[in-house]
């Protein structure tokens, strides 16, 4: 009802279900960090511009700062911690380590979540701004130019971009996308 200011909200985070009661102003980002203690998602600009807060919600990459948690009631959310763990890193996490694709590391959780979903988009044939001819419906081959364009929503203030691109291309190659 519109006169209520707290709403039962369920989020399943990295496979674990959480039942919350939330003010509708709470973002998915703040629900994760402040209510659930999930710190494997970072707050950068809080305006949808930097990509640090990227998570995968129901299979789609989103900036969790612009997502109201009440609107995502029932969603399955994956953060960087859901892509692997120490001793059992996910493929992208392993590649970021191998390629030294970070300096301070603050943008890295968002980078790997964004990259994971981006590779799925490429596999599904989603074109990009640098696709030569969108009408051709060609399968996607990820070049460095393609990775840079598709990852442009994730800023890295340290400027680790060359190694980030290399790390993502390593995994794209393993998955037959490069």
């Amino acid at each position, binding site marked *: *009802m*519109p*006169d*209520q*200011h707290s*709403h039962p909200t369920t989020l399943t985070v990295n496979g674990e279900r959480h039942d919350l009661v939330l*003010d*509708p*102003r709470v*973002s998915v980002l703040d629900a994760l960090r402040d209510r659930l203690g999930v710190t494997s998602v970072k707050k950068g600009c*809080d*305006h*949808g511009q930097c*990509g640090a807060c*990227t998570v995968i919600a129901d299979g*789609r*990459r*989103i*900036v969790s*700062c*612009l*997502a*109201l948690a*009440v*609107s995502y*009631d029932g969603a399955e959310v994956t953060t960087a911690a859901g892509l692997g763990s120490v001793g059992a890193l996910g493929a992208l996490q392993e590649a970021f380590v191998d390629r030294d694709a970070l300096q301070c590391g603050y943008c890295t959780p968002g980078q790997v979540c*964004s990259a994971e*979903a*981006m590779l799925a*988009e490429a596999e*599904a*044939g*989603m*074109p*990009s*701004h640098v*696709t030569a*001819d*969108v*009408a051709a*419906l060609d399968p996607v081959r990820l070049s460095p130019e393609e990775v*840079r*364009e*598709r*990852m*442009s*929503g*994730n800023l890295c203030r340290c400027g680790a971009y060359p190694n980030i691109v290399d790390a993502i291309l390593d995994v794209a190659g393993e998955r037959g996308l490069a």
Partner: protein
Amino acid sequence: MKAFAYARPGSIAEALELAGDGDDTQTAYLAGGTNLVDHLRLGIARPDTLIDLSRLDFGGVEETADGGLRIGANVRNADLAADPALRRRFPFVSEALLAGASGQLRSMASTGGNLLQRTRCVYFQDRSTPCNKREPGSGCSALDGYGTYNALIGASEHCVAVHPSDLCVPLAALDAIVHVTGPGGERAIPFDQFHRLPGDAPERDTTLEASEIITAVEILALPWASRSRYRKVRDRASYAFALVSVAAAVDVADGVVTDVRLALGGVSHKPHRARAAEDALRGQPATPAAFEAAIDAELEAARPGKDNAFKVGQLRRTTVAVLTELTQTEGDRP
């Protein structure tokens, strides 16, 4: 952020009932949230009630009987850009979507919400400065302030802001139809009549009436729009709003332009359909000289300010380049 009540209606009828006859200062509709949630946080949008439409099923991308497409308002920008029918029939619509925002934002943002994006004029977003769009009667800071992104065509003494959407530029070229449902029932708004010029009421971006909900955008069949292109000029190679953009579709027979659709982004308070250029070009040879004469006919209406005069030459060069590329290869799309 100001407190608000939240409701997630299960139908359009229920949403309209919740909205009542309230104006948009009392209620706001939520879809993808990429613009609205930011404005809630900045205090630019201050509704009492937020009505969440994001789970209403307005349909996907469907082919219409006449060979056009009907796009449900909740189709996400990323899904629309990837749609095979859209890419084959209206490639410049897909190109425009892909030129906008970032992968994350495109996977959140809705079709209906894209039409309702508010200007990125820096003063509109900065509550410490006067802005007639944000606070009617307070004045326009952009008139004498930072003016790189200011409008060239159709501005008023009250507002020089431009519409930020990429998607809307080819939709203007295509004479798309915006389907809406409101307390008074359903109606279909021609695209050119959906957005408005600022005049003395810049706080109103569109001609939507109180509580009306966008349910779909319809693109009518235009077989020769398979030869179309969208080009965006911006300060960065990716993830930036347009300085200017050009959406063009052209039909050529025996070296003569038989028909053309042209719309410009980054130049006006609404996506700008370049009808003077279209009229000047129809029946002319498909040559760079004719393209330049056509865009010059359109740009006679330009009123550049101190910071944005460069956009005139930028529009001329970009339009000539796009039309030249589209027409230099006979048959297949270049």
